[in-house]
C-alpha cells in the first residue's frame, strides 16, 4: 500500500464534502452557526483526517492492531460528540424532524435502544470471525468506519442531542449510561487483552510495526480499548457530574414546583 506520507484523496474528498454540506446547509437555511459550533466541526474534521489518513491509516494497513483500535476509539468516542456539538438546532431540525426520519430516529435514539445498537455493533465487529473479513484492507473495511461513525452518533445522541424536541437525558442518567457502557466495552476488551493467542487472522502475519510481536500488539490494542476509553469516559462523566452539581447548587428551589410529584404533594398538603 501507500507510504506514510500518502493522504488518500477519497477520504479527504469525503471530509471536504462534509464541510461543504455544513456550509451549504447554513447558506440555504440562511443562518449562521455559532462560533463554538464551527469550532467543534473544525475539530471533528481535523480529527477525522488524522484518524483516517496519513500515518494512522498507514500503520493500520501495515497490520498494527493497536492503531486500528485507536482509530476506532476516535471514530466512536471523539468525532461523533464533536459532530453533535457542531450542529445548530435549526440545522438538525431540518434533517431529523422530517416525517419519514423522525419516528425512526426517535426509536433508535431512545437510550436503551441506542445503547443496545451501539453495543451490539461494537461487539460484533470485534468478533474474530467477522473481523477476519472486515479488518483486512479489503473493501468492507471502509464501510465499517462509516458504520462506526453512525453508531457513534446514535450512542451519543441521548447525551448531546442538539434538538429540544429530543430532550437529552438527565445528568444522573447520563452518568449511569456511561457507567453501563463499560460492561460491553470491558466484555470486548478484556478477552482481547487476556487472550493467549492472536485472535485475528490478518494481524497474525509478521512483521508488525514498532517492533512489537503480533501478540504484544494485540494486548496493547486491547488495553487502548479498555483503559484508554475508560479514562476518556471518566473525564466526560467528570464534566457531567460537576455541571450537574453546579446546576443543583445554583437553582436550589425549595420545592421544585415544576416537578409533578412535588407539586401534587404541596397541593395535597394545602388542600
Amino acid at each position, binding site marked *: 500500500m501507500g507510504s506514510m506520507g500518502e493522504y488518500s484523496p477519497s477520504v479527504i474528498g469525503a471530509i471536504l464534502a462534509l464541510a461543504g454540506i455544513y456550509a451549504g446547509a447554513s447558506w440555504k437555511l440562511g443562518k449562521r452557526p455559532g462560533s463554538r459550533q464551527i469550532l467543534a466541526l473544525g475539530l471533528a474534521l481535523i480529527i477525522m483526517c488524522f484518524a483516517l489518513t496519513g500515518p494512522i491509516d498507514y500503520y493500520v494497513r501495515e497490520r498494527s492492531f493497536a492503531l486500528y483500535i485507536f482509530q476506532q476509539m476516535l471514530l466512536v468516542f471523539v468525532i461523533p460528540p464533536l459532530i453533535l456539538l457542531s450542529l445548530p438546532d435549526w440545522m438538525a431540525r431540518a434533517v431529523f424532524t422530517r416525517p419519514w426520519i423522525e419516528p425512526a430516529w426517535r426509536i433508535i435514539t431512545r437510550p436503551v435502544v441506542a445503547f443496545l445498537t451501539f453495543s451490539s455493533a461494537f461487539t460484533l465487529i470485534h468478533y*474474530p470471525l467477522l473481523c477476519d473479513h472486515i479488518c483486512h484492507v479489503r473493501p468492507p473495511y471502509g464501510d465499517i468506519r462509516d458504520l462506526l461513525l453512525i453508531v457513534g452518533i446514535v450512542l451519543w445522541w441521548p447525551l448531546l442531542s442538539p434538538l429540544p424536541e429530543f430532550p437529552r437525558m438527565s445528568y444522573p442518567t447520563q452518568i449511569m449510561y456511561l457507567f453501563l457502557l*463499560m*460492561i460491553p466495552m470491558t466484555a470486548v476488551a478484556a478477552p482481547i487483552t487476556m487472550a493467549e493467542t492472536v485472535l485475528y487472522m490478518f494481524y497474525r502475519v509478521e512483521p508488525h510495526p514498532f517492533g512489537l510481536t503480533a501478540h*504484544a500488539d494485540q494486548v496493547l490494542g486491547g488495553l487502548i480499548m479498555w483503559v484508554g476509553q*475508560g479514562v476518556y469516559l471518566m473525564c466526560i*462523566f467528570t464534566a457531567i457530574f460537576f455541571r450537574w*452539581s453546579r446546576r443543583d447548587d445554583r437553582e436550589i428551589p425549595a420545592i421544585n414546583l415544576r416537578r409533578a410529584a412535588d407539586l401534587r404533594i404541596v397541593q395535597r398538603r394545602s388542600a
Partner: protein
Amino acid sequence: MAAQPKTLEYEYPNYLQDPRGIWSWLTTIDHKRIAILYGVSALFFMMVGGLEAMLIRAQLMVPNNHLIGAAIYNELFTMHGTTMIFLVVMPLELGFFANFMIPLHIGARDVAFPRLNALSYWVFIAGAIFLHLGLVRSLAGMPDAGWFGYANLTERMYSPGINIDTWVLGLLILGVSTLLSGLNFFVTIVNMRAPGMTFMRMPMFMWAMLVTTILILLAFPALTVGLVFLFADRFLDTHFYRVSAGATPILWQHLFWIFGHPEVYIMALPAFGIISEVITPFSRKPLFGYPMMAYSLVLIAFLSYGVWGHHMFATGMGPIADSTFAITTMLIAIPTGIKIFSWIATVWGGRLRFTTAMLFTLGFIVEFTAGGLSGVMHASPPVDLQQTDSYIVVAHFHYVLFGGMMMGILAGFYYWWPKITGRMLNETIGKWQFWITLWAFNGTFFPMHFLGVLGMPRRIYTYAPNMGWDFWNYFESINAFILGFAFLLFFINLVWSTLHGEHSSADPWDGRTLEWSIPSPPPAFNFVTIPMVTARDAFWVRKYGSVGAHGVAPAISGGAAAAPVGAPAEVHEHIHMPAPSIYPLIFGLGLFMAALGCMIWIRLILIGGALILMSILGMVFEYPTFGQFNPEALAESTLGLDNRKLGMWAFLGSECVFFASLISTYMVYKDRNLGGFDAMILNIPLTSFSTFILLTSSLLMVLALAAVQRDDRKWGAIWLFGTAFFGMIFLGGQAYEFTDFVLQGLKIQTNLFGQTFYTLVGFHGIHVLIGVCWLLVLAFTTAAGKIGKDRSLAVEIGGLYWHFVDIVWVVIFTLIYLMRTVKHA
C-alpha cells in the same frame, strides 16, 4: 449534650413497642426491625469471627506450636475471613446501618420493597447457617480453602469432604441475599426521596449507599457465575477449572476478582459514608467539598471494575497487562485521597467534640490511610511479587478492613445507637474501648509488616524457631488478646447501655440530617408527615436557618428553631403500613432445604423448591393490591415511576452481567476445547425456527399488554396464553435439542464445549421456563377477570422480563449458533 431541642411527646408507640412477641419479629417487614435482626446476627458472628482470630493468634503465638494443628488452622482462617466479610462487615453496613438509616435519611416510611427486605434477611440467615453446617458432622468439616477459595484446590479431587460444598452453597445463598438488598436499596434511594431531596441534597451516607448498591448489582453476578461453575465441577463432574480437560483454574480468579475488587468497595464505601455523617456534627461544620466527595465515590466505583488484575500479578499475566492494572490501581488513590483530604478539611477549624464516635472516626482516617498506602505499594507488580502471600498483605488488608471498615462501623454504633434504641452508649466505656483498640490494633497488625518483609508466609499454621519471627508473633498474639478484650468491653457496653443507659433525646448530638428530627426510637412509620427538604443538611437548616450556620444552642436563641420536621399537629394523614408476612421466612427455609438437598438427600430439593414456590405465590397474592397502580405512591415517587418497574430494570441490569460472564466463558473456552464435540453439532435450522417463535412471542406480549391496558380482559388473556404457548414451543425445541445431543453422546461432562454450552443455554432456558410459568399465572388471572387496566402493571413487568429474555436469546443465537465456525489452528 450541646443542643437539647424539645422532643415531641409522640402519641405513637415506637417501633420496638408495638407489636410485641416472637411472632411479630419473625414476620416483621419493618426496615428498622429487620435492621435489628441483622445487627444482632452480625454481632453474634462478630464474636464467632473474633474468637476464630484469637485461636489463630494463639496457634501462632510460639513457634512449633501444636495447639490446634494444620487442618483446623486452615478452617479457622478460611472461616474467619469469610465470616468477617460476609457475615459481619456487610450485614452490619448494609443490613444494619443502611437498612435502618436509608428511609430516615431520605424521609421515607420504609424501603421500596419491605417484604423483599425481610426475605433478604432470612436468606442471609440461611446462608450463614449453611456455611457453618460442617460443624454438625465434625470439627473438621468447615470450609478450608481460604476466603477466596482458589480453584483447583476446591475441586472434588483435592477437597473431597463437605468443606467446600458448604462454602459454595453458603456463598451462593448469601449472594442472593445481598443482591436483593442491593436492588431494594437502590430503588429506595433513587425513587423514594422526600420532596425537595435532590441527589445533591442527600446526606453523604446516601451517596455512598447509592453507589454501593450499583456495585452490588453489577459485581455479584460474576461471583455467582464463578460459584455455579465450581458447584457444577463438584456435583456434576464438569471441568470448568480442571487443567486435564483443557480448562484453566485462572478463570476462577478472573471471575472471583471481577467480583472481589468491587466487593472491597462494597465494604469500604458504606464506611466512608458513615464517617462522613459522624464527622460533621462533631466538627460543627458542613461536610467539606460535598460535590467532590460525591464525585469521588462515583469515580471509585467506576475505577473499581478495571483493577481486579492486581490480585493476580503472580499468575503471570505478562508485562503489558501487569502495567495496566498497576496504573489503574494507582489511579484509585486519587479519589481516595480526595476523600481523606476532604475529611481533614472538615475537621480543620471545626469546634470539635471528642465523643467516642468522633474518636473512632478520626481513628478510621488515620488507620485507613495507612492501609491505603501499603495498598499503593502492592499496586506495583515487582514489589507485589515479593509481598504477595506474605504477612505484609495480611497487615495491609487488616489496616483497611479493621482500621477502616471496623472503626467506621464502631463509630456508627456510638453515633446511631441512641436513635436505634433510645439509649446512649456509655461514653466512658466507649473511650476505654477506643484507646485500647487503637493500641492493640496497631500492636497486632503493625508488626505484620515486619514479619512480611522477613519472609513469613500467610496461611501457615506454625513456623520453626529462630527465623527472626518469634518475638513479633508473640507480641502480636498478646495484643490480639487485648484487642479481643476491647471487643468484650464493646459487647458489655451494648448490653448494659441498652438496659440501663441514659435515655436519649430525639437529637442528642445536635445532628444535621433528618433522622434526628424524629423521636428516638422512631415510631413504626418513621415520619408522621413526610418532610419537605429545602437544602442539604435538611434538619440543620430547619434548626438554624442555613447550612453554614454555626448553630447556637436553640435554648439560648429562643428554642423556636428546634421544632422537629413534621409536627404531628399539622396533618393526620391515614398512615398505611403494609402488613407483616411469614413468607420471607418460609422462602429462606426453602432455600436452605434445597441447598441441603444437594448435599445429603436429593428429594429435599423438591421439598425446598415447593416451599420457595409457595412463598413466592403467597407473597404475590397476599395483598389484594397485587399488580395495582398505586397513585398515592406514584405521586410521591421521586421519578414518577413505579418502584416495581424500576426494580425490574435494576434486576435486568444485573442479569446482563450474569449472562455476559457466561457468554465470555463460552468464548474463552471454545478455543481451548480439547477436541470431540464442538459447535458444529448445533442444529441451526431447528434453532432458527425456535428463535423465530421466541421473537414472535415478544410480539404477542406487546399485544397482550396493549389489550390489558385497554381493559380488554378477554384478548389480554388470549395473547398472554399465546405468549406462554410460544414460550413452551421454544422450550420444547430446546428439550429436543438437548436430548438429541445427549443421545449423540454430548453430555455436560464430555468436554469444555459441552459444559459451557449447557450452562449458558441451560440458564437461559431456566429463565424462559420461569417466564412461561409467570405468563401462565398472569394469563389465568387475566382470564379469571382479575387483571384489567388497573393491574396492567403486573403484565407490564412480566413483559419487561420476557423481552429481556428474548434479547438475551438473540445474542446467544448470534454468537453461539450463527457464528460458530471458529477454532483457529
